[in-house]
């Protein structure tokens, strides 16, 4: 199967969606491939954007509306690139589309999920809770189709799902499909994953439930998260009276992740707002090296500093230990002055950074240059990085970057 020449976008997060839409609204044909069962990526799992404290679903709805009304975009979910051949102006990209076991007849009635007994880790909620193995990944998930997890294929559960579907939408015989897409240009918008905090052994992240990461905090504060939006400390469900944010957890550190992720400072200030909204009296401490809130984000920092119960403590956290009552003891040290401090809190949020998704695998078939951290170096023609695949930036920069990258891709199409 071969598609007419188009622009291929790899990755359906905010960068990939934006790049695809911007090119499509200029009249170009675009294929978007996404490895998970839905588009939206990391942004779909963020509860609010800084600096406006507004819900990402608001912009997402507009983007989905744009996608639904634009015939120029073809979306492949559960799809991964096998290989890329050719050169700028004429690439053949071989893609495997994995089975969803649910076809386009699905009406979202939800009967399959009702009868399914097996549960799997809820990937949308970062494994913090379970979901049925026949599921809609989240309320806004697009494409608007349920998914059957491959783990139940061949079991009674799968059969029950099939029988429960009145619309003949469950297809247990689906097999992986190969698709070849002919594209003039490729936009790599493969995004990021959170840095694995357990790598920093002195933080004891994997040994203590009350140490969470900033991405987990997004889910804790989300209505469709594991606690229905209540910020509770994981070990005992207690409402935390004190929370510490540890900035640069693994970032700006040659031993782990040498670069700065550029977003964690503003994200922490946003999450201070989450805590404050729920707990007006909670004490909040931020351990930081430098607070980086460029541009208009400075307004956020200024406002946070006005909060009497928020302390910004300069110094890198060098150790976190649990205490007998489930609390945590943080030791911090400022490397410039040697000033040391200790603080006991009820819950710790590690502000972990972003690791590019292609850091370990690269791009199948090559064609892109990567720096030592795994970000795509912006040079060459035909294959373009966009968003966090290229460098660690926030959503506002991703949307602008992807818009510009769409034009680079169009130029390849025009040149032929």
């Amino acid at each position, binding site marked *: 199967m071969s598609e007419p020449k188009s622009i291929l976008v790899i990755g359906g997060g905010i960068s990939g969606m934006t790049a695809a839409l911007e090119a499509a609204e200029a009249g170009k044909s675009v294929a978007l491939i996404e490895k998970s069962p839905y588009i939206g990526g990391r942004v779909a799992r963020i509860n609010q*954007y800084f600096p406006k404290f507004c819900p990402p679903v608001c912009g997402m709805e507009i983007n989905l509306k744009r996608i639904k*009304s634009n015939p120029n975009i073809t979306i492949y979910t559960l799809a991964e690139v096998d290989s890329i051949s050719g050169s700028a102006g004429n690439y053949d990209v071989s893609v495997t589309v994995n089975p969803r076991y649910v076809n386009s007849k699905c*009406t979202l009635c939800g009967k399959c999920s009702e009868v399914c007994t097996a549960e799997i880790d809820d990937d949308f909620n970062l494994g913090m809770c379970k979901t049925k193995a026949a599921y809609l990944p989240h309320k806004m998930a697009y494409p608007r189709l349920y998914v059957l997890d491959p783990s139940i294929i061949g079991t009674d559960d799968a059969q029950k799902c099939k029988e429960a579907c009145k619309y003949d939408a469950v297809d247990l015989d689906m097999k992986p499909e190969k698709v070849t897409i002919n594209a003039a240009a490729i936009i790599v918008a493969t995004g990021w994953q959170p840095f694995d905090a357990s790598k920093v052994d002195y933080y004891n992240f994997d040994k203590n439930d009350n140490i969470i990461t900033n991405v987990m905090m997004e889910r804790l504060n989300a209505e469709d998260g594991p606690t229905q939006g209540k910020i509770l400390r994981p070990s005992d469900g207690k409402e935390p009276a004190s929370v510490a944010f540890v900035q640069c957890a693994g970032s700006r550190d040659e031993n782990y992740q040498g670069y700065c992720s550029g977003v964690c400072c503003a994200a922490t200030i946003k999450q201070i707002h989450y805590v404050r909204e729920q707990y007006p009296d909670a004490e909040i401490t931020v351990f930081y090296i430098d607070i*980086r809130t*460029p*541009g208009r984000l400075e307004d956020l920092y200024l406002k946070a500093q006005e909060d009497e119960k928020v302390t910004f403590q*300069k110094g890198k956290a060098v150790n976190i230990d649990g205490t007998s009552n489930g609390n945590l003891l943080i030791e911090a040290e400022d490397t410039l002055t040697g000033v040391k401090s200790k603080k006991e809190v009820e819950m710790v949020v590690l502000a972990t950074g972003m690791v590019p998704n292609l850091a370990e695998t690269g791009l199948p078939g090559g064609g892109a240059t990567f720096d030592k951290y795994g970000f795509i170096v912006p040079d060459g023609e035909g294959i373009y990085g966009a968003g966090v695949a290229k460098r660690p930036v926030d*959503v506002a920069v991703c949307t602008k970057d992807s818009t510009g990258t769409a034009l680079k891709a169009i130029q390849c199409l025009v040149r032929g």
Partner: protein
Amino acid sequence: MEKKIGCYICTGCEIGEAINAEAALEELSAPVKKTHEALCSPEGLAMLKQDMESEGVNALCIGACSMREKTEVFNTFDPKKVIVERVNLREHVAWCQKPGDEDTQMMVNDYMIMGLTKVEKSDFLEAYSPSEEQPIDKTIIVVGGGVTGLTAALEAAKAGYSVVIVEKEAELGGFLGKMNKQFPKRPPYAELQDTNIGDLIAEAEANSNIKIYKNAIFNKVENGPCIYEISLNVNGKEVNIRGGAFIMATGWKPYDPNNLGHLGYGNCSNVITNVMMEEMAAKGKLERPSDGQEPKSVLFIQCAGSRDPEHLPYCSAVCCRVSLKQAKYVREMIGDSKVYILYKDIRSPGLYEDFYKNMQQDEGLFLTKGEVASVTEDADGSVVVEAEDTLVGKNIKLKADMVVLATGMVPNSADGEAIRKLTDAKATLKKEDAAKPQIEAAEQDLITYKDHEGSQILNLNYRQGPDLPMLKYGMPDSHFICFPYETRRTGIYAAGPMRTPMDIQDSMDDAAGAAMKAIQCVELTSQGKAVHPRAGDESYPSFFLQRCTQCKRCTEECPFGTINEDAKGTPEIFPTRCRRCGICMGACPERIISFKNYSVDMIASEIKSLEIPDEDEEKPRVLVFMCENDAYPALDIVGKMRLQYSPFVRVIPLRCLGSTNIVWIADSLSSGFDGILLIGCKYGDDYQCHYVKGSELCNTRLGNVKETLDRLALESERIRFEQLEFSEYEKIPKIIEEFMETIDRVGPNPYKDF
């Protein structure tokens, strides 16, 4: 074209179990009426297509799932030939109401009648096309010939578009042209890079798609996207061109150091700014102003006037890296030199951290976190800086041959709305019959906005002002997170440091983004289609001007400046500027503004089409107007979660709450509705309305209505406006419940039985 209407009800997804579809269809008067067990299935779609082919049905009223679902099935028809109205019987009825209940059935009957009424009042679309005297022009006009403008021009030209660059100076290059080097933007982030501005200028000059006007400013810009008529002043001569869309790449200016006396500027001869440092380095020699000696020690004061509520409250994002770069100039150009950087936070975000780390290896560079207390001049001309080291709480004293103030960037923008206030104030003061309060307000405006005098850039002939509206700090108003280029003037896209402070690489990326949006605008507009957020929409408003009373509300309220007015105050509409939100339609007291598929009469007819139960039936009725972008989808989620709410509400989705016409309130009350609930987006500084002002305008209009109701002894509590964020869907049932309690308390609408 004749309309033939088909009404369809899908009985799948529990709709069939919840209601009697046949009974609902019986209430409708239409030539074709059918049910289907799964209308979205291939068989269901085949049935619709069969009716269209053999029966000539060309207007479909489809009662099934939400209009947001199964769009790939039901929204594939050409709106110029087929009308499709989706009636939400699944998420808004079957999934949130008691199955088989009489009230549930009434809800379905009502929704189908409303849907049918809407179809009856809808017309086939015809895309807008300008008159033959106004040929479509897709030229991209780039304002500013600095790095952002040059890049934008080249990016658009490489995609095959004609571009005109308008530069006010005699030479291209902008600020980058004055700079020595740029900080590294590629791994390993160690060596400074050339600015390469000469190459960029040469490339633009050599590109046959690019026409460049230097020494050029705008006399006037008339009309709208794709049909702009532009008068330029080039070297004092008038040049007339046409254009399709604009890219504003007007760059930035340094924050005025004359305001920084407290940091020694103007008081100490050897205190200079980072801009002066850059120019000096570009000339190849660093010398301190007082005696022309090489400064052996240089101290940089970061955030000079930035992150300071008294000066620039924001962070200019680049100054930390600029100072690190300039520290390198000093270290490389002057032997045995020492450089101190006094900072609040070193901001080298992202991969630029590597540049910071590389610079930290330099033993001649000393970084200190601290707040400046005083800057004074020593007898030998050197500068003494006293600072509080905020970490250890100690005061420190540093002496340097020269001090560089890292001053921030101020956008080179013009605030169209502020300039308009000045113009209007002057016009008021010239009027002989102006009333005293008007004169006082005008005089106040002259003071408030005096800094904007003569700041025009584009000179747009737009009633709402000659330039882009600003949000804060001189940065253009836009949804700067999700949709950063969408300014409030269709077809005019801001890029580079004019939009928000950014470095060279970011400006170049931004330029490409703005060029993409400008290209999209000319492509969509040339086909008569709307741009974001209703991209592709072929409807547009038409005005029945014979009934216009020149009240000017449409001109004032359109967030996008679509409408001008003539000398008498009659609106002049420029459809290519329009975003199709319908805010003008909501503003118009004479109800003369309509789209073919969205009008005051259409919604009013929907309201009047319903039979309201008598008071003694104890079935109150509440009309709920919902924003179709946020509140309506949130209500869909309520349905998906199977949360129950009152069966007495009837929901009408609106393009934007700003399109709410007050006459609908009167119509609802006179039809016997007991209450009206309006759910729109958050407004204020951090507004979430996709049309910027819509929900706020709606609330203002309602304020006026409530006063009228109070005068008529009708309880104003019957009308409630709620702001809702998309993610707050779980609040909706509660909002409805509370409102129903209020209605219960104030009692039935006394007009009900009339």
